[in-house]
């Protein structure tokens, strides 16, 4: 049986994370509008795609003038993480039945996986995943709308502020991967520097948006040969 203390801690962590990711949701809504999407498209992404890094990547490539394929390719590449998470979650969550599995799948993201894996037992893991995933889904969608509507009203200096916020938001997503707490931080830093350098070097020569995907493929190939 689950102790009340563990259950309360699980509920607190799950709801707290739902509020915390709301900030990222507002940043995403604003970034989407800065990239030229309308508020409907920003909200559709948060409802249907519902995986932050992929959403940022999609609007980032579109904002840089990239085409549909480059944008979708970037989003899908970042979405592969969630496949690995799903594999780790199956033994904990045991989603039975087709509909249950379809619903569970949409909530498989960084934060809900971390909550479920950190829970002390399978019952709390299921609670953390469902409650945390649900709270994040709600917070993320509401704040996306607020961020998109807020950014729509900006002009002049406040628009310049938003332009500077977007790359800072990407850097904040990248930052934890470069720190000591992450596995192989030195290799992550090399990969990040390589990706940035190749993307900048290609910018004058390839269509907008293509440099991002090319940089990722080049770094992936370089890594494979060295191993």
């Amino acid at each position: 049986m689950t102790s009340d203390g563990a259950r309360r801690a699980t509920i607190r962590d799950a709801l707290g994370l739902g509020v915390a990711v709301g900030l990222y949701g507002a940043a995403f809504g604003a970034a989407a509008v800065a990239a030229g999407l309308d508020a409907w498209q920003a909200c559709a992404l948060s409802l249907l795609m519902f995986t932050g890094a992929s959403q940022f990547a999609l609007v980032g490539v579109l904002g840089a003038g990239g085409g549909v394929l480059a944008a979708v390719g970037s989003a899908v590449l970042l979405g592969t993480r969630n496949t690995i998470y799903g594999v780790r979650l199956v033994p904990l969550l045991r989603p039975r039945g087709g509909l249950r599995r379809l619903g569970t799948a949409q909530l498989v993201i960084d934060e809900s996986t971390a909550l479920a894996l950190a829970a002390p037992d399978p019952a709390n893991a299921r609670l953390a995943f469902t409650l945390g995933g649900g709270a994040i889904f709600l917070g993320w969608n509401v704040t996306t709308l607020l961020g998109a509507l807020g950014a729509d009203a900006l002009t002049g200096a406040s628009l310049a502020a938003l332009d500077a916020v977007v790359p800072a938001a990407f850097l904040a997503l990248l930052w934890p991967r470069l720190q000591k707490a992450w596995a192989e931080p030195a290799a992550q830093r090399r990969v990040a520097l390589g990706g940035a350098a190749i993307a900048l070097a290609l910018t004058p020569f390839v269509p907008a948006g293509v440099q991002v995907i090319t940089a990722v493929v080049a770094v992936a190939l370089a890594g494979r040969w060295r191993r």
Partner: protein
Amino acid sequence: MSGLWVAVLLGSAGCYLLKLAGLSVPAAWVEHPVVARVVDFVPAALLAALVAVQAATSGSQLVVDGRLAGLAVAALALALRAPFVVVLLLAGLTGAGVHWLGSLT
């Protein structure tokens, strides 16, 4: 339908199917070492490429403006463990400040 909507819907479908695949395919398919390696490192390359392109390019040109100044301030704030919202505020203020200085000349 506009290109933007195609990107939104196609990207969403792709990301959803990847989530569903994790709950549906045998674990051995996904836990191949090469797959695990790519999944570990692709985000760093992709996010860094996006940071660079968002901060220092406009179309096919490399440009230095308030965005790069904002990024430098954001990096400093992150190194000092500032919370996310503070990082974004400082970057935004820097971008607006550079814009204001530019409008003076």
